[in-house]
């Protein structure tokens, strides 16, 4: 199949995503939602599809700008430290490996070339990754590399965190069962 035929078979959304993230097509991915501006990748990774999680300062009040959510008590700064604290508040802890571990839910934080958080992805039960791309669609991608790179891509993965999957009984409960 030639390039032109292949492009004709792609939806506008797929063309858009593959243009933005050059590694995505080779890695394999699937679009799993419509585009939505109401939540971002950080919210999505934390399991919230209703709010945009970001410490956006009000340009006139010096507080959080109306329309955005950031966990209370977490520093209002666009730093990796602040974002890690926000995930720690949700029960995540920093870990070393992105590999699938039974019973654990993992999140990867990407940073840009200046070390500023640019994206977060969440690991599914099957070991693939789920991402919300800005105000675009949710996607599932086979590896974290799919969204890495310069330009419009999200830089590099900097930090992995994990927490017990909430849809599984706790270890104690499993013993009782």
């Amino acid at each position, binding site marked *: 199949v030639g390039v032109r035929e292949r492009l004709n078979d792609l939806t506008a959304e797929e063309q*858009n*995503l593959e243009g*933005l*993230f050059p590694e995505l097509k080779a890695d394999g991915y699937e679009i799993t939602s419509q*585009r939505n*501006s*109401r939540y*971002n*990748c*950080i919210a999505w990774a934390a399991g919230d599809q*209703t*709010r*945009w999680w*970001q410490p*956006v300062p*009000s*340009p*006139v*009040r010096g*507080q959080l*700008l*109306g*329309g*955005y*959510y950031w966990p209370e008590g977490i520093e209002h700064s*666009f730093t990796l430290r602040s974002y890690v604290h926000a995930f720690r508040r949700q029960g995540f802890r920093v870990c070393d490996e992105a590999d699938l571990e039974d019973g654990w839910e993992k999140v990867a934080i*990407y940073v840009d070339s200046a070390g*500023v*958080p*640019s*994206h*977060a992805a969440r690991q599914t039960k099957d070991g693939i990754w789920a991402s919300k*791309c*800005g*105000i*675009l669609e949710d996607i599932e991608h086979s590896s974290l590399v799919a969204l890495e790179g310069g330009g*419009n891509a*999200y830089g590099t993965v900097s930090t992995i965190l994990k927490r017990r999957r909430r849809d599984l009984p706790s270890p104690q409960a499993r013993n009782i069962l």
Partner: protein
Amino acid sequence: MRYGEDDTELDFGGDLDDFRLVHVYPHHAVEFAASFRARATASPNSRRRRFRRTDSEVDELFVSLRDEWQSETAAFGSVFDRIMHHSYQRIIGLGPQVVPLILDELLDDETLDHWFWALAMIVGYDAAPGASTLDEAAKLWTEWASVNGLMT
């Protein structure tokens, strides 16, 4: 001499000499100079009036900048990166005349986008303090506009 003929000079003529700052965006400088040069002829006695855009000019510019902003920043995970985009900053630069157009954007569920920074910057006020979702903020901003007679 016009920009593009010689990259070292930009001639706005007469009173517009102050605007050499637009060297930063050469292609915008060409539009800017042409538009305001025409106005200088139409309003020779009011320097400020020469810098006012007509409603139709603002409408056209807003749509063009909005489309450019949305298409070039849609994948950005950080709203801060989105609002720092040059098109968004130019929308803010359109000033109070653009507020009704932004408020109209908030009424459409399908296209609701991150306009709250621009509104707060132009108006000098956050009409949605404490709102934690885009929908809540849009509702509070449109209520604020209605109460102040800005929705009709």
